[in-house]
């Protein structure tokens, strides 16, 4: 994707450069495809958000905002495990308690039951007491057992959680 176009959309160009770029944007047909794809990218971000939190690890404020518009049940784990009942729920939320007071960054790994990571949220939002995970009921139904592992910047495991999703 054209870097100048992204700089323009980000509002990062100085006034004269922006004016010059706008003249080229309206004259140069080679920018047309990049322009369409850039708009698609921004539309894609909004579409992701409309489907629920675009990131499955959320802050307290993002969770509070979600609960104002959707049915969300918060689950507190017992012995590293949560049992979520999906009936009537739009989203499943669970607290992942962990002592993260000394962590600089944490990543969250989504793992198979065998412990193999298949998805990683880099640099997840967290507090010193842990973090929050949210997934849509649709995703939860497709994932009866969801294993999470929280790792710090050195790769050390800080917490693990199993979410058992029950359709009823």
């Amino acid at each position: 994707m054209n870097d100048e176009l992204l700089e323009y959309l980000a509002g990062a160009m100085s006034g004269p450069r922006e004016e010059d770029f706008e003249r080229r944007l309206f004259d140069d047909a080679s920018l047309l495809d990049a322009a369409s794809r850039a708009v698609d990218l921004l539309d894609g971000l909004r579409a992701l958000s409309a489907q629920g939190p675009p990131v499955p690890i959320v802050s307290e404020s993002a969770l509070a905002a979600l609960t104002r518009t959707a049915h969300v049940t918060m689950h507190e784990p017992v012995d590293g495990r949560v049992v979520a009942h999906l009936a009537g729920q739009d989203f499943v939320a669970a607290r992942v308690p962990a002592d993260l007071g000394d962590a600089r960054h944490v990543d969250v790994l989504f793992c198979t039951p065998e412990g193999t990571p298949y998805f990683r949220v880099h640099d997840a939002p967290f507090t010193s007491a842990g973090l929050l995970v949210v997934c849509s009921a649709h995703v939860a139904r497709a994932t009866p057992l969801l294993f999470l592992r929280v790792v710090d910047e050195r790769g050390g495991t800080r917490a693990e959680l199993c979410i058992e999703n029950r359709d009823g």
Partner: protein
Amino acid sequence: MNEVTQVDLTDEQALCARWLPVARVFFRRHVGVGASEDLAQEATVALLEAVRAERMRDPTRIGGFFLGICRNVLRHSARDRVRQLRAYSRMHHDEQHEQEEPREPIDRARLWACLNALGGRAREVLLRTYVEEDSAAEIAAALALTDVNVRVLRHRSLATLARCLESREGSHR
């Protein structure tokens, strides 16, 4: 650079396909997503009307002419006026959507993976800007940055996201 000498001003379908995406980018930059679609439609309709009324006869000048239209629409884009124009724009919108070339949409699964692979601050700046529509000043205040930092970070983050989407792996930082 300038290909417009080949533009057939009587081909309104081609005119819409050529200029509506450019207008979308222009208004995304200046007003955010909220009113941008309406304004892009309005500007494109104004272009078609100018061509029909033969106020635009020289295809070699159409780029600058349309930029002028877009800037003029932007100057008069108060929210109340946008609401009044919405019905008018949508009337033309239906017609234009039939004329637009189908585009391959963004792969949402890959976009989701790429977004998650961004650093926390980069991700927050993008979501606050393009989903929440917070201003650079609001984001700067929330993240203890300067306006300039926000704009630079937003540019870098968009570029990283775009590169990720275009890469084969897609989900790797």
